[in-house]
């Protein structure tokens, strides 16, 4: 893939983004203060932990670029994970279960897209509503209980390795490259920029704005279904609260990564760095045994500092 391809359209600002600075500072700081931090095992650990969030943050970047938002993505992940678990237990077929999870993601993505594009309900409200629906369905299906008894084959997807690299990292890398290609090298991606930047332009170009919007949210739903597979494998069970609040983590990672909330301007690599920055911060603070309440405050500070750096640079 040509670097020229993304250097111009992709970088919101042509200087070092805040997230990169933050990430370097964090890594240097933890590397010095915590002996266990800079070990290969721990780095693999951080990356593996970040995979599920990345799977949600990637489509979130695309959705935010269209001046949209998907608050339902964490709840959809949860519900898909439950459906996956229930299906695999009932049928014994992991493939069928995975398809069922993707199906759940597809349905919710389609629902979101149709409500937003056809019924003209703003994305924030639409997905706030579908968040409730997905969460309610999760509770109703499970009655609040964990779903356990999943065959080991599923767990392998999270704990297995290929050539020494954990499966989740391979899956996440794949998802990243697919999203990158979609965003910067396909019609879909071009129209995503237009959806956020100037919808009128799309309309007069004869492209269906509705169709595009629906596709964008379907992409989000499918990725949530995909993430459900990793989540289920990670927990070796499904739980109705597992994904609660992950949508906000994903949004924060996207914002920390420098994607703008206003102008149809996104930076996928920034999202990746944002996700890793959050992972590094949590891991490092745990290794330093920082009290949990301080950790909570640090996460807030990370978000604000990264955006502050970006804002300062933009002013120059």
């Amino acid at each position, binding site marked *: 893939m040509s670097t020229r391809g993304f250097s111009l359209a992709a970088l919101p600002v042509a200087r070092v983004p805040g997230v990169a600075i933050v990430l370097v500072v964090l890594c240097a700081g933890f590397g010095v203060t915590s002996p266990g931090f800079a070990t290969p095992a721990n780095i693999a650990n951080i990356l593996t932990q970040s995979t599920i969030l990345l799977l949600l943050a990637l489509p979130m970047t695309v959705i935010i670029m269209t001046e949209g938002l998907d608050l339902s993505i964490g709840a959809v992940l949860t519900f898909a994970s439950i459906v996956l678990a229930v299906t695999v237990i009932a049928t014994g077929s992991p493939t069928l279960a995975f398809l069922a999870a993707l199906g759940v993601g597809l349905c919710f993505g389609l629902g979101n897209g149709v409500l937003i594009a056809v019924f003209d309900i703003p994305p924030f409200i639409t997905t706030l509503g579908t968040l409730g629906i997905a969460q309610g369905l999760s509770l109703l299906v*499970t009655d*609040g*209980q964990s779903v356990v008894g999943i065959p080991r084959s599923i767990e392998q997807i999270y704990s297995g390795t290929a050539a020494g690299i954990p499966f989740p990292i391979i899956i996440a890398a794949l998802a990243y490259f697919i999203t990158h290609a979609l965003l910067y090298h396909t019609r879909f991606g071009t129209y995503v920029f237009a959806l956020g930047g100037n919808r009128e332009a799309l309309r007069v170009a004869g492209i269906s704005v509705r169709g595009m919007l629906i596709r964008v949210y379907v992409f989000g739903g499918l990725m949530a279904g995909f993430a459900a597979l990793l989540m289920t494998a990670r*927990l070796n*069970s499904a*739980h109705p609260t*597992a994904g609660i*609040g992950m949508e906000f983590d994903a949004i924060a990672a996207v914002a920390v990564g420098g994607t703008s909330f206003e102008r149809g301007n996104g930076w996928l690599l920034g999202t990746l760095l944002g996700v890793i920055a959050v992972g590094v911060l949590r891991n490092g603070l745990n290794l330093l045994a920082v009290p*949990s*309440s301080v950790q909570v405050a640090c996460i807030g500070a990370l978000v604000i500092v990264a955006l502050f750096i970006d804002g300062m640079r933009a002013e120059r």
Partner: protein
Amino acid sequence: DDETIAVFTKNQTNPYFQAVRVGTETAAKALGVKVIQYVPTKPDSIPEQLSQVEDVIVKKPNAIVFIPVDYKALVPAVEKINAAGIPVTNITDRSAGGNFVAFVGADDYSIGLSVARRLLKAIGGKGNVIILEGVKGSLTSTNRVRGFNDAMKENPDVKLLASQPANFQRLNALQVMENLMQSFPSIDGVLAANDPMAVGAIEALEGANRKALVIGINGSKEAVELIKSGKLLASGDFNGFIQGCIGTEIAVRNLHKQPTPKEVMLKPIVIDKTNFTPYEMPVEQRACPTLEQIVSN
């Protein structure tokens, strides 16, 4: 040298887990070890506790004292700890899988049963009762409510008006109770699956100028004050402090290759007007009982 013990609790907001943490720290001081607390930044977050376990394994503490956020969902975490060869003691919620040095806990079911019996006896074995459940599907809530219901079965003249969840939360309990009081003009007793919900119910009753007996579970400081002032009938003692103490002591004994029991179940104690005095002392000032004292009891 300094042995370190990593302690995992569910959240930073429920006083019960604070009591557990104080228990582990008190015991650690007495035994000359160091404890490090790990609490999910988002209350009761399963993925986060799992991540914290993974991070802690990197640090290799000498031992772990573990309360799983969810007794089933955290089994993979326990397996990872086992694989890393770190001895782990399970307290409060019994994990559905994995190998533990020991389990220290109290039986939610029998605490629910005995404290409910206390209330049903106080209303004379007849009347109308409401149950306030905790978070749906949590082991704690399920077992406590099962205890409540079995106590109800022993009193066929008592009528269960409603059994509604209030998520272990005060404000939820207050509003659920306010709403239920609209439907039920006569309520004699409220069985709440933890103390904050009991307090919420009391506030709702007081606000409407109505009288009913209320019980809660956990034996929190606040509950003890309310028992003293006669607003709360009783609270089941789940005794997080002692669970923290004993869990830590077992972990340390195991490290020192001393024999440990496989399981310690604390007896259900109902705190009421007759026996609240020892519970008035703040947990920070209490001393840990030794394992022998508890086991011989």
